[in-house]
């Protein structure tokens, strides 16, 4: 068959035949392309429509929400800023300077808390309106808890990737049994928690040597890593009631520190799990040569290892930041008045007597999701570089 007949037949095919011909290598057939783009477009609409609806509803007034669905601003309805105005400027305390004041107040109160054993400083009461209060609370809590979580978690992940651990199983069981003893003593016999803890700790140090000599079964790094990661299975509802009581006992209920610590611990398994893979994939020679030059472990971690894993660290940090920004259950239980976060404030708007003011609610939701969507766009850039894929190798 000559070249010309081949070309002729190529041009002579009907549209239908062209649609279903075998594709070139590394390409898709036209029919498959049509199907693929249709599905992707449909899914994009499904994903984006609720977000679009929330955003336009925040610019509607009561009539435009209640009289039925209006889809397009300026055509179906006249957008107004009423919802935003009532949320952000109606109250005389609601102005942008209030956010600055709130941060100053938080600093003052934390200093007062830290110095409370030595000096009595009266904590300041918040003066600003609810939305700014919730916003600053959310910002402070998520940033600090993320910082603690990522720092502590990546230190543990690094140690598990590089240093051999072999704690004795018997010692751990002793520790747990003494913990149970402490709880029984304080719960049923009314012993002060610090006294029983001190006795238990002393007994633990006394027993460690005796037990270590007899029961030699040891845990390895993999076991410890698995133990830390498996903490994610624990449903938060199991721990939240005792934690409520614990915080009540040490007067930490309704403080920022409580939520910061809780969020940090809840997200710790994710950090350890993700960062362990990044650290394990680093070449060990770098650290060994640094050690020969006299660098300390902490120095190696801080100056060599962390900068090398910066992309992974950034992705993990953003992920944890988003998770603690969105956290709901712990906040519902533990944040009653002063440390209400954004999710709690939005949920509380549900309980109005005249029904829900959807337009105001939507304005708050938009404020809540804008920082997060920015982070989502940043995070996909990291992920598309194949950073998180390292953690998914199994």
């Amino acid at each position, binding site marked *: 068959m000559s070249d010309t007949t081949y070309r002729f037949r190529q041009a002579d095919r009907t549209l239908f035949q062209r649609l279903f011909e075998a594709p070139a290598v590394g390409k898709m057939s036209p029919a498959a392309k049509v199907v693929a783009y249709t599905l992707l477009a449909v899914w994009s609409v499904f994903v984006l429509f609720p977000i679009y*609806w929330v955003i336009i509803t925040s610019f509607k007034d009561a009539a435009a929400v209640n009289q039925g669905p209006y889809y397009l601003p300026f055509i179906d309805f006249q957008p107004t800023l009423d919802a935003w105005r009532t949320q952000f400027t109606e109250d005389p305390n609601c102005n942008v300077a209030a956010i600055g004041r709130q941060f100053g107040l938080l600093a003052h109160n934390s200093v007062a808390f830290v110095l409370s054993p030595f000096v009595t400083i009266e904590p300041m009461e918040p003066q600003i309106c609810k939305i700014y209060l919730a916003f600053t609370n959310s910002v402070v809590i998520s940033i600090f808890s993320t910082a603690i979580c990522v720092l502590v978690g990546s230190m543990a992940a690094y140690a598990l990737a590089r*240093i051999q651990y072999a704690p004795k199983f018997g010692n751990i069981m002793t520790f747990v049994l003494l913990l149970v003893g402490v709880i029984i003593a304080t719960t049923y016999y009314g012993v002060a928690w610090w006294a029983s803890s001190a006795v238990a700790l002393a007994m633990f140090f006394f027993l460690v040597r005796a037990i270590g000599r007899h029961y030699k079964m040891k845990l390895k790094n993999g076991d410890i890593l698995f133990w830390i990661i498996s903490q994610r299975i624990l449903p938060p509802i*199991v721990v939240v009631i*005792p934690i409520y009581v614990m915080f009540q006992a040490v007067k930490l209920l309704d403080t920022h520190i409580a939520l910061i610590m*809780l969020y940090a611990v809840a997200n710790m398994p994710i950090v350890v799990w993700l960062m362990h893979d990044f650290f394990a994939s680093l070449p060990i020679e770098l650290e060994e040569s640094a050690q020969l030059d006299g660098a300390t472990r902490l120095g190696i971690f801080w100056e060599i290892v962390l900068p090398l894993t910066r992309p992974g660290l950034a992705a993990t940090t953003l992920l944890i930041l988003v998770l603690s920004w969105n956290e709901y259950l712990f906040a519902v239980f533990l944040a009653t008045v002063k440390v209400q976060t954004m999710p709690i404030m*939005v949920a509380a708007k549900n309980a109005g007597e005249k029904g829900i003011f959807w337009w105001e609610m939507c304005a708050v939701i938009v404020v809540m999701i804008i920082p997060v969507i920015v982070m989502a766009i940043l995070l996909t850039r990291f992920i598309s570089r194949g950073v998180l894929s390292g953690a998914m190798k199994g």
Partner: protein
Amino acid sequence: MAFPDDTRQPGTVPAGVPLRDRLGEWVDRHARTFFIAPCVTLILIFAIFPTIYSIFFALSRVRFTGSGLKFRYVGFRNFAKQFFGSAEVHFLGRTEPVTLFGYAVFAVIVIAVLWWLIRSIRRTTWVGMIGRTISAAMAIFLAWILCASFISGNAIGTLYTTLFYVIVGCAVQFIIGTGLAFLCSQPISGKNFFRVVFFIPLMITPLGVGYAMRMVADVSKGPIEPILNLLGFSDWIWSADAWSARFIMMIGDSWQWIPFIFICMLAALENVPRDHVEAAQVDGASSVQIFREITWPQVVPVAVTVLLIRMIEAFKIVDLPNIMTGGGPGSATESMTLNSMYIWRANDLGGSAAIAYLLLILTVVVCASFFNYVVLGQLRKARS
């Protein structure tokens, strides 16, 4: 002659070094403790200690008094209440009239589970056998509840509502998420745009998702309302029927969590070597064949791991039912976490802790079974 200032070797502290250096040396010798201690301490204080403490709540009747909490030991009464007592219908569902079909399905499941257990006696160690017995017991218990409630035409309780979100929700999310990831891993243009768009819902707070879904699904003034009218559903209210409420909840949950499956599966699919696929294409394999024979076997280990992570998170669902229906109609959309939360609000701390513990046991057994029999099996197959 100039000597370098600091000539000491690691591990040796000569006499006369300043205190600061000696302290640094001490820190370095105990570096392994300093690295792991904060993490382990925090987990012990905020996860292990409360988990143990929670047992004491679950076994007691707890009262708030002026001087603190008063515990009165009541044994397993808080747990028994969920299975045989006042909360039975709420927790397990209505299990009373069991139909013949229900008994038949139950018998088939029991025989299958026991057959699996007996067959595995020869293969595993006795530790493995204990684990398998626990899994089998849980499977038979769940099968009985399912056959007595749902299959016999009775209402289901919070136990199976939670499992519905986990099993059906995860299956739907996995299928759609993997499908989207497969589409996005094909040579199409605008990949990055779709990747960003599909990723966004994962980052939005579940609470915002709940309200957005509630608005979109609103039957009197929501955006879907004209379409529903066109289809003849003008007087239909989704939140008044148990199953439609559950399905709307599941759609909201899927809207949020499909991106997670999508992004992980996309990473896995893009790690599949391009030349394997192209070689198969040159050999004339159809795209279905390529997916089944080449791509899928390479991503299965990641797929089961992702599914496990998603399952673990799905057991904790609380915000969406709380916001969208408040657990209603009746208790149709209440997950176990939400149930526990409501009981906590009614000041029954013991009952709340008991439900939380049942959720913990359920989660651990289901997830550990899935991990041992599916994930480890697939990982082993991939390594060999």
